[in-house]
């Protein structure tokens, strides 16, 4: 087994645990590269199908290409798609810096979906290598009734034994991609031929490395126009993936505050 085989086997194991232990269960599908890989892994785990709904919590500010991609692949992959909306930015914590405040809308939209569908498990495609606070996450991360992430009090997690919900109103965030790195994602996309929205590939010397809302995500300088070229580029780059995400840079603690409150 090579490295990608091992990552795949581990993610399949995690997804099967989630499906066995957490009902109702749903997967967040943000339409980006990581969540496409996640849908793909679910199809691997469940022999070609995704036996639970996928959710798109729509900020209404995604790129038009992303909406087109969503509608096309929801059909092709035979997904049960749940759509959620986000409250206006005026309702968000005004003490957050502007981009973080805008991102907080998604937390609120997600909370509403969890409530509405009474979810016990939410599968999300975050990775440890993206950001310092994500590096501290568990594969199964319990959230109390307020959806808060209690960083100081995370449960032990070892030998592939994961937390289960033990109180009414709590849910578990499941992170099957936690151990994957950005380059692993791309190599897997290449190996499996997983479709992606075009924005990841260079046009006029620029491409998106990470896709968030249109107004708070910036493209990077790049000439990588194919998956292979992106991989070659990543093999030598020294900047971080989320460099184009405004909210990560506004203040040292902005992202942590978002995550503690329930952001992904």
């Amino acid at each position, binding site marked *: 087994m090579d490295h990608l085989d091992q990552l795949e*086997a581990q993610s399949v194991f995690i997804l099967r645990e989630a499906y066995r232990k957490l009902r109702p269960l749903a997967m967040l599908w943000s339409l980006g590269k990581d969540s496409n890989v996640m849908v793909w892994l679910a199809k691997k785990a469940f022999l070609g199908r995704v036996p639970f709904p996928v959710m798109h919590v729509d900020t209404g500010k995604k790129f038009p290409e992303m909406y087109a991609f969503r509608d096309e692949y929801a059909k092709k992959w035979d997904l049960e798609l749940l759509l959620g909306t986000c409250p206006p930015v005026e309702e968000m914590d005004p003490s957050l810096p502007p981009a973080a405040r805008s991102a907080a809308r998604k937390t609120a939209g997600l909370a509403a979906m969890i409530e509405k569908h009474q979810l016990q498990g939410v599968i999300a495609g975050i990775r440890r290598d993206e950001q310092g606070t994500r590096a501290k996450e568990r594969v199964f991360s319990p959230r109390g009734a307020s959806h808060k992430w209690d960083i100081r009090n995370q449960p032990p997690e070892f030998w592939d034994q994961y937390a289960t919900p033990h109180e009414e109103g709590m849910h578990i965030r499941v992170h099957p991609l936690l151990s994957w790195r950005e380059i692993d994602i791309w190599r897997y996309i290449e190996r499996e031929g997983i479709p992606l929205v075009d924005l990841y590939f260079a046009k006029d010397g620029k491409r998106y490395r990470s896709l968030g809302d249109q107004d708070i995500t910036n493209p990077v300088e790049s000439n990588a126009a194919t998956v292979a070229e992106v991989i070659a580029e990543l093999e030598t780059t020294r900047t*971080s993936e989320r460099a184009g995400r405004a909210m990560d840079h506004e203040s040292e603690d902005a992202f*942590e505050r978002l995550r503690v409150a329930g952001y992904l």
Partner: protein
Amino acid sequence: MSQSLISSQDAATPIVIVGHVDHGKSTLIGRLLHDTDNLQEGKVAQIIESSKKRGLKIEWSFLLDSLQIERDQGVTVDSTRIPFLLGGREFVIVDAPGHRQFLRNMITGAADAEAAVLVVDAAEGAREQTRRHAMLLHLIGIRHVIVLLNKVDLLDFDQKKIEAVEQSVSELLGKLDLEAALFVPASARDGDNIAARSDRMPWYKGPTLTEALAQVPSPASRANLPLRLPVQDVYRFNDKRYVAGRIERGRVRVGDTVIIGTQKTPARIASIESWHTAPQVSAVAGQSIAVTLEPDVIPDRGDLLHLPEAPPVEASRIRTRLFWLRQEPLRVGESFKLRLATAEHAVTVTSIDSVLNLEDLTEQPGEEVPAEGFAEITLSAAENVQFDPFVPGTADGRGVLVDRQQRIVGGAPLIEAATIAAGEKVIHPSASTVTLQDRERAKGHRGGVFWLTGLSGAGKSTLARGAEAALFASGLDVTVLDGDTLRSGLCKDLGFSEADRTENVRRAAEVARILRDAGEIVLVALISPLQSDRALARQVIGDGFAEIFVDADLTTCEQRDPKGLYAAARSGKITGFTGIDAPYEAPQSPALHLKTSSGTAESVVKTLAAFVKDATTLSSVTQVRS
């Protein structure tokens, strides 16, 4: 040196960094990443800025200590994993916090490591957490341990002093059956012997830390061991049944006959199914697969598939090592779920065979396992358990203990089937399949034990009965265990000696626990004068125990004297009466303090009822789930 950040396509080797708090783990990792050119652009500038903000020069530990509390308090709170590339080989560095209460975070980071770097402050020597971490490394079977003697700048790089520290650490590890692969004297802060050879220790001829890491062996393959495939789930899609699971050892081929679990049903592997891969006829350890069986039997989750000629051990009593993660000590008689791969068995702790003394590293028989302690215990299950004894380097026989709240409270590397000693009381309590959550949902509230302690005549029974009526009227399932009621029946064989009083408390606590486990709210009204007895009750009951002090001064109680007992005690007709000729030890920090010397009983009843109600209310989002 300049290299790309990402290269190898092999799996990364996880290396955990452990050691006592402040011995320099985070600093070491920051330095290591920096000196080996493994940092992303802008990181160093970010660290310098964050350090300046807190009035520090440059704090390498901020690289990993990314949480605000970690930076503000200068300690690592939770473990992190960061990929790290060294000469084309990929590692994952796991930073584990050294604070005592954070052992559960350390195990989270360390459990699957191939090797460990044990950081010891050379000026300070091994400390409590050094010993605890070393013990944990031993228990989870990490055999390649590199000891980094850090901060040797504080010893002026003196060879004699450094070798003396090496000697003492080496002796310590020896007591734990752990042998260090290497000792590397270093200064993490300054980078000596980390990625580059120190010119301040010309006498040292051994490898630098990076050279030592490069020598860490790759994990041995588990593919050639006898097959173990624990069933994770069984699916039925489009009229076809799939048995899903991850192979823990060995390999499986289409056409193999396998034996299923303790029921020992044989079946043939009819096919290995997958999506978007080439057709498969065999699979090996590490792969998550789905198979179809012929005949189409339906195994349960947890059943172990194995080959007929190489079965696992089967026993209902198991000896195991234990690292205990709960804050309250473990006692004999407690029941848990033992999770073993995907299986789950109800077990009871039938004996604590030895407990490790962390001061002198000796093993002694003990009554309880303290918080974050290490022990050997015996577990009894209600049914037979199939397992392979834990051997370092394999994933078998690694159990965890889970409590009623579904929390992981301990790790249990299994040793062997236990034999039954002559004259031993063998008990196999059965476990309920009705969960705590089921009961809470049905009753609409939590169970709990409210332990009212106080002098005779302080008002325990009055308050308990008053609150019982009020709570029952608002729909709660509540009952009172009153001292006098117990003594007229269950405890009628007991007198008032200290031993009998303790036994009285123990019985009351056991009954309260049974009722609480059934989801009831229990108000116990019992003088229970001794601190130690109430501590015993708290231990028996565990979660959901609240101590309530019903506080009236002796003079008031003696004036009330509703049962004429004070008068009898004063005149010597009865002896050993609490407050007169037997002590009453008031609670130090009760969950609720009710003063009953003045004021009306009704208002105190209200306070008590409100407190109980609040403590047993389910969280606000409590709709019934599907």
